[in-house]
């Protein structure tokens, strides 16, 4: 989609969605995922959130938002392939629902700009608090065992690659952050990163564009592009890793190389293949590993779009590891052999189309869809992708499945299993 170019680095996109009652703004600052800055990027958004010229501290920001009928403001770091994204999200009820005719979207945008361009919280005590919180978040990754198994599988699978780095950084990296260092880093990245701003809902985008320029015109920018992701390449034999934790259910995560990038013409066929194999109640993993063998409550597959990776997750009894492992691979073989029923095929095509179509009702998903296209270097509309999906054949599914290879098997087992 075409946006309004604020300058060489900043693009502003407007997606009108007036049928919804909210207006959402997302700011995405793209950074190459790399060891020397990953932890600084992980701390930074939380520090920017602590104060700006418009609202000098967290309590003032909260009051400001409360007065806007509880507009929301969140900050976090994301990982899309080898792209580490510093994210700020705002949401307000749209102006036409403001009981007293308040200009809510404009007020939220004002806060957004002050947070991004006029931060004031680079102070030692605040940095200290946010470093502690950043480390809490790194540690807390183990609390969700299913997600943790995927993070660990990715780390092992991509050891030595950028993608092995966690978006949240490392404890050591966070320890090394200082107030002055982070301020300098902020000044550097704000002028040397590709920045995408998406506005969804009901807004006067030209007025917003002019407002943003008031801030950016004073700054000298160094031209930057969105970081490119490297497709995952296998390093040889299948890697087996087991961790032990105080858990009662085993978490199996299997990492596969797909060999297909998000920009590839085969990517649509890959999404349908993933759907046939493990994405949903119509899939082979659900119907065989869960329904037929009663081995688990969940067994599913998902794609890491920009890396050419597919993960399969299942929560199982420790003793059923081999049974589940064998069945997961056996089901992949059936897909590779093209043993796909008419029902599985139609259901999968419909599921992918249904998901694409449903983005239109959700501002956050819509932003993610557009951002995903941009990161992948594609520019498809939802309708174009639906059309492409409807043309995928069983032969196409077979062909993309043929390229899929098991690379890493990760198992989170109990302490007694050691």
């Amino acid at each position: 989609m075409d946006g309004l170019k604020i300058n060489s680095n900043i693009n502003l996109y407007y997606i009108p969605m007036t049928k919804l009652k909210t207006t959402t703004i997302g700011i995405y600052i793209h950074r190459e995922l790399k060891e020397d800055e990953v932890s600084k990027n992980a701390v930074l958004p939380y520090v920017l959130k602590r104060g700006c010229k418009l609202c000098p501290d967290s309590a003032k920001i909260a009051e400001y938002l409360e007065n806007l009928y509880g507009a929301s403001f969140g900050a976090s770091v994301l990982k899309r392939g080898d792209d580490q994204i510093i994210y700020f999200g705002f949401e307000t009820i749209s102006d036409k629902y403001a009981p007293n005719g308040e200009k809510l979207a404009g007020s939220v945008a004002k806060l957004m700009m002050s947070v991004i361009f006029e931060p004031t919280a680079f102070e030692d005590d605040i940095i200290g608090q946010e470093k502690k919180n950043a480390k809490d978040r790194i540690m807390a990754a183990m609390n969700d065992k299913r997600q943790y198994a995927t993070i660990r599988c990715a780390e092992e699978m991509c050891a030595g690659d950028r993608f092995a780095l966690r978006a949240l950084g490392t404890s050591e990296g966070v320890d090394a952050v200082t107030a002055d260092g982070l301020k300098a880093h902020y000044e550097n990245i704000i002028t040397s990163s590709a920045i995408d701003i998406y506005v969804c809902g009901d807004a006067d985008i030209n007025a917003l564009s002019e407002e943003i320029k008031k801030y950016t015109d004073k700054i000298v920018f160094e031209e930057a592009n969105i970081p490119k992701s490297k497709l995952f390449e296998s390093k040889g034999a299948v890697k087996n890793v087991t961790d032990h934790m105080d858990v009662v259910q085993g978490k199996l995560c299997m990492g596969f190389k797909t060999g297909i990038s998000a920009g590839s013409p085969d990517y649509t066929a890959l999404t349908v293949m993933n759907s046939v194999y493990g994405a949903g109640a119509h899939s082979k993993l659900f119907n065989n590993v869960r329904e037929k063998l009663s081995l688990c409550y969940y067994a599913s597959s998902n794609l890491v779009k920009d890396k050419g990776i597919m993960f399969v997750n299942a929560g199982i009894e420790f003793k059923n590891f081999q049974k589940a492992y064998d069945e997961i691979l056996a089901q992949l073989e059936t897909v590779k052999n093209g043993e796909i029923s008419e029902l599985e095929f139609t259901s999968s095509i419909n599921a992918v189309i249904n998901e694409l179509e449903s983005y239109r009702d959700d501002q956050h998903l819509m932003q993610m869809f557009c951002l995903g296209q941009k990161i992948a270097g594609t520019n498809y509309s939802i309708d174009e992708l639906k059309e492409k999906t409807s043309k995928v054949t069983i032969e196409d599914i077979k062909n993309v499945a043929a390229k899929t290879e098991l690379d890493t098997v990760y198992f989170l087992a109990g302490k007694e299993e050691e």
Partner: protein
Amino acid sequence: MELNYVKSDATGEEMYYGKHSSGLGVYIIPKKDYSKTYAIFGTKYGSVDSKFVVPGEKELTDVPDGIAHYLEHKMFDQPDGSNVFDKFSKYGGNANAFTSFNMTAYLFSATANVEENLETLMDYVQSPYFTEESVQKEQGIIGQEIRMYDDNGNWKLFFNLLNCLYQKQPVKKEIAGTVESISHITADYLYKCYNTFYNLSNMSIVVVGNVDPTGIAKIIENGVKKNEPFDEEIKKVYPEEPKEIAKSYAEQNMSVASPLFMIGFKDTDTGYGGERLLKKWIEINILLRMLFGKSSALYKDLYEKGLINNTFSFEYTMQPSYGYSSVDGESRDPKAVYDAVIAEIEKTREKGLSKETFERIKKVIWGNYIRSLNDVEDYACTFLQMLFMDIDYFNFIDAYNSVTFEDLQKRFDEHFVKERSALSVVNPS
């Protein structure tokens, strides 16, 4: 079936609703230009309802814990041996179901073939088919679901808190039951529960999306299989819950990164639903934000001391028969957080609530209500949950407008009582 129409000036929302002669409540909320339609077909029957008297019978029926959830799983099996997911999948519908303490619901979302998906929903929820063999088969799957929750620190934290707050209320028991309790579930038990609680006079259906209300109502009407409403109410038997809490503290060791805490306040002003309950919900939500929200003095103090982080949150949970407020998060020192919370309440009791803060926070509640009408799924689910408490969520504004600062002061005194508070902690093992 006759459809009534209402429109809200405050939100621009419209609704068509009616009651079918079978007793089924029908609610249709058209959303112009939406891609997605969401339908939810629910029964007022949840995990707390394991003791009841079937209409027409005299004796009490007592079934194993976890049966409402087990029944939900088994509803997906069809008499012809097929799985109902297949039917939805064929039409591109995304189907699911859930069981909570007080309701069980079956649902789908779809961006095409809404009629076919809706027919499927109506059909399968009214087509129970259980055999001893199929019931047996589910033990493994649900066993793993229970296991999954056994490793979830936040889940255990929550149930440990409920076990502090409640002495007898069955809400303190896990929704899915235990591996032991579900081993006693039989096909006969499932049929007994089904025939009682899935009578259409105990059920409602809500459809939200880009739909033609008349057409949708017709499909629902044609989909009714059994028009035999109960003459009398299903008598649900709950033990009498004392006002006092069971205990003030619980802790458990699990594989979590840092200690998790949840503080609860038991609500004893219970026993009613409707607008009065919704009003209470609004009052307590305002109070929670005033006391613990990001603009509060307590939040600032705890955050800056490093006693809480961004995971800190709070909530009020309501039902006609019980209610509680909870405040939760991660902390290196949960007891210090609990003490600070109690101290803040005592301090507020002395110096009083701020009217200015009340006015500001009240706006947040309105914004959140408007926001809740955005997503067809959230909207329909919330609407149905409220409906089962006799609350008209469509007319939220009436309860909202009736809340005054004086009400809030009374509610504060009545709800935030130290003696009815408890602390649950999950420590790293």
